[in-house]
């Protein structure tokens, strides 16, 4: 600590009883962090790979998407790593999106009644999981060819 503070601090996660309302709040932060790091760095790599030409895009393709049947062990490990990243980033995107929409409603002063608040928090989780599953299915069938 750089300086001592006598002001009261907010209790951390382990103090609160878990509920959809508090879970969606911390998930908004966690997913925002994932999008700002893994999500945006992969986006930049993708854009620069497109701009860099065919050979440059082939490198992105080999490590991120699929190294093909004759890929080395390291390349295949990268593929699976990036599939995990893609799934995490996709879920984070939808979770942050629906949670953000919920924030717009709260910003207007609506949705603070206990039951309503709980319902929309749960709905955002359900919508995010559903949308992630939908995208995963589309990608699996179209891009990877599973």
């Amino acid at each position, binding site marked *: *600590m*750089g*300086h001592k503070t006598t002001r009261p601090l907010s209790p951390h996660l382990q103090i609160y009883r878990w509920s959809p309302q508090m879970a969606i709040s911390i998930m908004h*932060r966690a997913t*925002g*962090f994932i*999008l*700002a790091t893994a999500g*945006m*760095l992969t*986006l*930049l790599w993708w*854009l*620069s*790979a*497109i*701009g*860099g*030409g*065919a050979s*440059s*895009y*082939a490198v992105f393709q080999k490590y991120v*998407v699929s190294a093909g049947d004759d890929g080395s062990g390291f390349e295949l490990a990268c593929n699976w790593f990036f599939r995990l990243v893609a799934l995490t980033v996709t879920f984070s*995107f939808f979770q942050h*999106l629906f949670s*953000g*929409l919920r*924030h*717009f409603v709260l*910003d207007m002063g609506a949705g603070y009644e206990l039951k309503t608040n709980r319902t929309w928090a749960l709905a955002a989780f359900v919508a995010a999981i559903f949308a992630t599953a939908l995208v995963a299915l*589309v990608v699996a069938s179209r*891009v990877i060819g599973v």
Partner: protein
Amino acid sequence: MGSGTNIGKVRGLGSAKHGGSHWISQRTTAVGNLLLTTWLVASLLLMPNFDQATLALWLAKPSVAVPMILMLVSIFWHARLGLQVLIEDYVHDDALKFGAMTLLNFYVVGGAVFGIFTVAKLAFTGAAA
């Protein structure tokens, strides 16, 4: 506690009167993100294939390059505002906080400029072979 004097405010006992603009910018960029990332996701789902040549021609079009550049500005700005709050909440040491904020600023400005330059180069000079 502070009596609302100037020195009291400097010591953190009053509002810095800058909170509103941060909050508004976060919401404005959030609306931008909502529109522009929805556009990107829809574009990706409608993409005929993911060959480099197809993607380069697509990205070089003004109707794609412009929203892509706008999206980069919006998401990196939004990330700057969001990660700033994370640092303020979780990094308590003043020196570490200053260093983390500096790194964050370098990251978002560097990342956004890198992305914008990539898109602009494609749009202005055409796709590399």
